[in-house]
């Protein structure tokens, strides 16, 4: 078997999230794959626009909703631009799922806070829908989400949907200068809003964080000041990858390969790694 061979998937639906971010709904062309494919929240895959290359994104949909797979990506490089140009009915390549998972068993009975910035919401969204679909297993759900501007927020319709749910609190913010006259959310960086406006109680709570390394750093610090312990913080890293299989050599942080040992890390695991992520 060729480990680099992708499965073919058809784009069922394209959602333009922002001017340069799209969501794809993907369905396996092979019937057997459609029936047998399984993954868990937190895992990632390699997506290709044939002729352009491969890129690494998380699986943004929930394993509780298996009628299609979703990915959400920004057009920044050759392959993502290639993907961006595809339409409904077109084919993409898919290799995965790879990597470890969010240990949902360990979250049972606890309140969960999801903290994300910009394009980092999709990796957490898989977990969000997963826990919302099994709401009886978990406590209160909070979602703290920010982007540079109002225009850059992804999943705008779903955020509204979450805001309507009784067991969900949504705290949304945009960076200073990114607001519009109609904006009803906060204005400020995610770690600041989290600490000063939302100020969650750490009791029986797990915080799931995804964002650029600098945001993870400041968010950890803010949560630390709020009284969160290291074993209450979990994050997912987004290092550059090519193979996803522990061979191509670029996603490592010291001896830790994000593709094999991650992408999901507890804060205490992260603290043991060299500061090179």
């Amino acid at each position: 078997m060729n480990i680099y061979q992708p499965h073919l998937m058809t784009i069922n639906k394209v959602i333009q999230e922002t001017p340069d971010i799209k969501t794809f709904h993907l369905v396996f062309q092979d019937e057997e794959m459609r029936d047998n494919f399984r993954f868990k929240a937190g895992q990632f895959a390699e997506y290709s626009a044939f002729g352009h290359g491969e890129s690494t994104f998380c699986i943004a949909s929930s394993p509780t909703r298996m009628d299609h797979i979703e990915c959400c990506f920004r057009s920044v490089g050759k392959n993502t631009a290639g993907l961006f140009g595809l339409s409904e009915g077109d084919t993409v390549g898919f290799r995965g799922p790879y990597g470890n998972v969010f240990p949902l068993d360990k979250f049972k009975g606890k309140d969960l806070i999801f903290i994300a910035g910009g394009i980092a919401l999709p990796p957490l969204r898989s977990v969000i829908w997963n826990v919302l679909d099994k709401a009886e297993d978990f406590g209160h759900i909070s979602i703290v989400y920010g982007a540079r501007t109002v225009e850059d927020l992804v999943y705008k319709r779903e955020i509204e949907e979450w805001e309507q749910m009784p067991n969900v609190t949504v705290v949304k913010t945009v960076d200073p200068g990114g607001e519009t006259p109609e904006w009803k959310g906060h204005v400020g960086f995610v770690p600041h809003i989290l600490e000063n406006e939302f100020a969650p109680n750490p009791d029986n709570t797990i915080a799931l964080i995804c964002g650029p390394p600098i945001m993870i750093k400041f968010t950890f610090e803010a949560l630390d000041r709020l009284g969160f312990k290291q074993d209450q913080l979990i994050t997912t890293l987004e290092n550059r990858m090519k193979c996803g299989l522990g061979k191509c050599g670029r996603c490592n942080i010291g001896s830790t390969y994000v593709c094999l040992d991650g992408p999901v890390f507890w804060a205490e695991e992260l603290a043991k790694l060299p500061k090179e992520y």
Partner: protein
Amino acid sequence: MKTATLQKSDIGKCLDLLIQSQKRVIAPQLRPRLDSPDAIDVLMLTPLENGDNHQVGQGILPLNGVKEFLFVKHEPILAFENKDNKVHIKEVHHKYPETIIFGVRPCDAASIASQNAVFSSDNAGYNDQFFTKRLENTTIVTYSCTTGDQSCFCTSVGLEPDSDRGSDLHLTELPDNTLHVEIKTPAGERVANILAPLLQGEGDQAARDTAGKEAHKNVSRIRNSHLIKAWLDDQSNFDDEMWERLGEKCIGCGACTFMCPTCHCFDIVDETRGSKGYRIKFWDSCQFDHFTLHSSGHNPRDKQYKRYRNRFTCKFKIYQDKFNAQGCVGCGRCIRDCPVNLDITEYMKEVDLKASLPNALRQDPDFE
């Protein structure tokens, strides 16, 4: 273990016998380094048509290692075609001809296990068939070194000039111009069977051991490496001043990684013509600035010295931790071929010094 004796002057005949038995035979030859009439000939492992002009046992080390015959520089891993608005993918069927690489130096032979640890299913269960199928069909005939040059340092990383690790058939030159032949594996035995008309009686084990010891004396560059792993394991050394100071002159050309027999990094890209294309896996280097660059613009290894720190750490820690294999085989290519004379053994020397300093001295704030 079976041994035999072979006349050194019969190597050409050995190569001819192997070529006649329909094997692809690769051995060191003198070849122009560039495609130019002015190019200087260098020692290169090259497929042979006959045994006439081989350089087996000559020189120190071929410019290229065995790596490029197993982990190919640039190879299609998938074919695809856009037809009638649909994508069709096809397996690429490479030929994996039965290959004998003859005259491999012990350092290069030892590196194969390291590469295999990355590419085979031993690594998380993912088997890169493009590597492992080639390896299955490759027989390694090693040739002990009798001397080293100023860049060789195999004895500093646990190897010897006459090591037989990774060898199927091991040859050691004796002072009487014969070769001591050791059959190490069934694949080596198959080669020995082809060479049977040229093999004589049992080998002289005592003479072989003496030759090995003599060769050991000729490897002059000696560093301690036994303290390096523990020093790298100590996270506080990640920000040691040494990294920036020694790495300052690195220009990030990546030559060390391309020459290195254990470096395994690669990139995957699509190459297309019209509606058809190939997905290509090709050598990449952790020394390039875009290697780890995130799409956001963030780069975890944003300075050249950090990229060299990663390379050194990969050789002396990551390979051990992650792949349970040896990261550096001491071939010295990264020293010989570096355009700015960056020397991995200088790092080894510094780390050894730092690691062997008494604790009290290390904790003295005035000590640099």
